[in-house]
């Protein structure tokens, strides 16, 4: 309502002005007195609408009629007046209707413009429009914000130069830029859009902002660029984000290139799109050799059909969403394989589809080797331990380990279960009492056992001790404990370990052996006693017989007849032979090995001595004796003389019709000296060749070949004493050869008490 008052005010004013003007111009308007009023009505109606129009029409018309045409007091005097009123009524109606329509259109337009501006002001991008002179003809709120202006109107109202003074601009590298670099200049020059990213520094602030500005031309009807519309925004954050992303990417790349893992990025189809440096270096390939190729076509992984198939299937599985991992071998160069922990895993995009496959490999050659070693070692250790347990459990002895010294705190840390079997005591009984072994040691052996233990302890060397133990059931068991010191790698004493074995049987054997030895010694003594008796006590009565028979012969010669003398002779002869027999037996019994010292013997000398002893017989039989060069041997000197003497004597004795020819030979045969005594005597029948060495064996009657039958037996015993052999080869009527061997080197002579001496 308040708005309509001015409209009616204007209507009255227009009416009065129209009346006034009509009055003034009345002479020119006599024909058309209402022209000006019509104009005022149009004006009023167009401005205020139907009401004000009608008011102006009534006031104007009535005033003109009353004051100018004739003063009248009725409003409607004639039909003409009614026509006039209707005319104005219609005119006003028409004009006001026209105006109302126009106003509506304008309001709509204004609303559109307001909405547009609201939208533009709500946009984050700064939007301005500049004409060719750079004058800002439009600016939105964001543009003021970005350019640090108080409001968008100041943008439009402020001069360009002043606006530009508020900030300076720099290019991407930080170099100052002139304002002519702004894209609008390009737009006006080329009529094409232009873009620029620059840094903007608002004077008075301490920050630079990154601005992206795009300028677009707006053409007029003639196709000329009328305006440049700038759309710009602050891209600082986005740019920083981009730079940060770039940095991250670089860093990731560095990480990728510097880790000890081979990495390749694949498409889900398996084509390589990225590969890291270690992988290139290891394979000595270039990125271009790999990028774009299928992973399962790369030589280091596809050196055999089998592994190629496996990689191929892995790609398929990974592309289906699985993560594949296995150890495989990669061929780096000719024959140079490494073991790789290979993994192929899918990487998903935000939409859940598989974007890439990541193939990675870790060189585990060394680890693999070590693991294998440890595994082998573990297996070995395990099997060794098991074997050791088995050995300890089955060894026929008590395995033990003690710590502490003898004087201080001996403790049995371990004792094998055999102790129970051997002595009846359980390992627990043994282990809980440090002096247990002393307690079960036979009282008579206790002192000696402790001394033995102490000796081993202080010698620091392995040693054996022997003592008797009283078993749980009262048996006496002979024990031998083999002990060694346990030391750590720094030679520090830890304790003792060893095995105790039951030597009861051995001890019994030793005792019986000792008894046998004593028996043997006694028997040997008896034998030599017997030999002595033979040499002395048997000969004395013999001498008596001989002497007194001879005495009878001499004293009573004239009283004896021929028979008497012959009988006496037989008796004397028998006694004499008995003496020889006794002497030979004695010699034979004295061939005692233990009493035969060996020395270096020159066999030349021995042979000569033997020949010398036989000289009388040699002369009698006119024998010739030849010999090979004789060696020096290790033997008993007097035995060798005796041996040669007996053999040569034998050859001389059993000679044939011809004069004896005897050859003594010698040659080296392997480890032996082989001696031979060859004659041309009567020879020996083959069947007797063995028997001749048996004592008292005779092949011929005594009358023809005298002798006791002991000679060759003595030879055999001498040779056997020297670890040799003796035998004879013979052809009756042609001759006999005796052979014997003497070892070049004698094995160590066994003595009955050797064991005791070595202790």
């Amino acid at each position, binding site marked *: 309502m308040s708005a309509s008052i001015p409209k009616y005010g204007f209507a009255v004013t227009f009416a009065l002005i129209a009346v006034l003007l009509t009055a003034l111009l009345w002479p020119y308007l006599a024909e058309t007195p209402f022209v000006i009023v019509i104009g005022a009505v149009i004006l009023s109606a167009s401005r205020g609408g139907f009401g004000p129009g009608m008011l102006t029409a009534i006031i104007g018309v009535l005033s003109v009629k009353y004051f100018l045409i004739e003063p009248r007091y009725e409003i409607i005097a004639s039909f003409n007046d009614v026509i006039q009123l209707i005319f104005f009524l219609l005119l006003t109606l028409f004009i006001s209707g026209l105006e109302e329509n126009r106003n509506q259109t304008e309001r709509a337009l204004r609303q559109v413009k307001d909405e547009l501006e609201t939208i533009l002001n709500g946009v984050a991008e700064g939007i301005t429009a500049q004409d060719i002179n750079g004058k800002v003809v439009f600016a939105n709120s964001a543009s003021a914000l970005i350019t640090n202006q108080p409001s968008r109107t100041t943008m439009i109202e402020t001069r360009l130069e002043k606006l530009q003074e508020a900030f300076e601009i720099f290019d991407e590298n930080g170099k100052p830029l002139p304002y002519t670099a702004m894209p609008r200049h390009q737009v006006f020059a080329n009529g094409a859009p232009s873009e620029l990213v620059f840094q903007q520094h608002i004077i008075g602030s301490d920050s630079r902002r990154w601005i992206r500005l795009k300028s677009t031309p707006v053409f007029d009807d003639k196709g000329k660029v009328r305006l440049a519309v700038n759309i710009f925004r602050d891209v600082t954050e986005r740019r920083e984000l981009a730079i940060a992303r770039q940095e991250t990417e670089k860093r990731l790349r560095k990480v990728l290139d510097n880790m000890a893992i081979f990495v390749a990025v694949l498409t889900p189809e398996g084509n390589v799109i990225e590969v890291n440096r270690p992988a290139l270096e290891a394979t000595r390939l270039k990125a271009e050799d790999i990028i774009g190729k299928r992973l399962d076509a790369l030589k280091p992984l596809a050196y055999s059909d089998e592994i190629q198939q496996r990689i191929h299937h892995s790609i398929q599985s990974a592309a289906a969403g699985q993560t594949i991992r296995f150890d495989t071998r990669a061929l780096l160069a000719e024959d140079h394989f490494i073991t790789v922990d290979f993994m192929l895993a899918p990487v998903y995009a935000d939409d859940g589809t598989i974007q890439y496959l990541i193939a990675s490999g870790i060189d585990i050659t060394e680890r693999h080797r070590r693991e294998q070693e440890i595994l082998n070692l573990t297996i070995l250790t395990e099997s060794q331990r098991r074997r050791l347990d088995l050995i300890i459990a089955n060894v026929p002895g008590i395995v033990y380990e003690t710590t502490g010294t003898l004087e201080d705190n001996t403790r049995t840390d371990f004792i094998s279960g055999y102790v129970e079997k051997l002595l009846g005591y359980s390992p627990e009984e043994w282990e809980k009492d440090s002096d247990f072994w002393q307690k079960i040691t036979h009282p008579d052996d206790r002192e000696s056992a402790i001394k033995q233990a102490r000796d081993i302890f202080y010698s620091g060397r392995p040693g054996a001790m022997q003592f008797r133990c009283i078993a749980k059931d009262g048996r006496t068991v002979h024990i031998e404990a083999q002990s060694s010191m346990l030391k750590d790698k720094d030679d520090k004493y830890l304790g003792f370990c060893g095995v105790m074995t039951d030597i009861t049987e051995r001890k019994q054997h030793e005792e019986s052996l000792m008894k046998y030895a004593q028996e043997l010694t006694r028997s040997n003594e008896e034998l030599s006693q017997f030999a*002595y008796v033979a*040499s*002395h*006590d048997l*000969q*004395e009565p*013999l*001498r*008596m017989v*001989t*002497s*007194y028979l*001879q*005495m009878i012969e*001499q004293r009573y010669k004239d009283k004896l007849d021929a028979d008497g003398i012959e009988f006496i002779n037989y008796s004397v002869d028998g*006694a*004499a032979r008995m*003496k020889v027999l006794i*002497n030979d037996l004695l010699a034979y019994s004295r061939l005692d090995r233990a009493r035969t010292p060996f020395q270096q013997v020159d066999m030349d000398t021995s042979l000569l001595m033997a020949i010398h002893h036989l000289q009388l017989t040699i002369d009698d039989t006119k024998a010739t004796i030849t010999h090979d060069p004789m060696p020096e041997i290790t033997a008993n000197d007097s035995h060798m003389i005796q041996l040669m003497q007996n053999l040569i004597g034998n050859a001389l004795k059993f000679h044939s019709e011809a004069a004896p020819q005897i050859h003594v030979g010698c040659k080296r045969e392997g480890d032996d000296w082989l001696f031979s005594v060859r004659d041309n005597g009567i020879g020996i029948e083959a069947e007797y060749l063995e028997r001749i060495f048996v004592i008292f064996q005779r092949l011929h009657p005594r009358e023809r070949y005298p002798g006791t039958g002991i000679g060759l037996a003595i030879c055999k015993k001498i040779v056997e004493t020297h670890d040799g052999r003796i035998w004879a080869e013979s052809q009756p009527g042609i001759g006999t050869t005796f052979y014997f061997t003497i070892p070049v080197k004698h094995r160590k002579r066994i003595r009955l008490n050797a064991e005791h001496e070595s202790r």
Partner: protein
Amino acid sequence: MQNMKAVDILLVEDNPGDIRLTQEALKDSKLHNRLSVARDGVEALAFLRRQGEYANSPRPDIILLDLNLPRKDGREVLEEIKNDDDFKRIPVVVLTTSNDETDVLASYNLHANCYITKPVDLNRFIQIVKSIEGFWFQIVKLPPE
């Protein structure tokens, strides 16, 4: 020679046959000899020491000693004689049947003056006894009494 003082010989011998043979051998000796006989080692030492019935026995100029004797054998007798300052200078001739080396060695080790094995042959025996007499009384200079 006939005027020479008689020589005293002590024969230590248990076998009467040998005693008789020795006596027979010495019977035709040119030397005037006195043969005393001890039948075992104990007797021999008693004789030397003039103990008991041997209180008046002469000190022998030579001893013919058999080794195997009853009671105390020849080796012990030899040892005692040679360890006795009064008797050790008296020549001891070991006259025995044994030709055992150990006997020979043992005898000499006990300072026997000589060792003779009795031969089986009668004549050899007689000859040996005569030789002993001839050697020890006509050749050897014996220590003064």
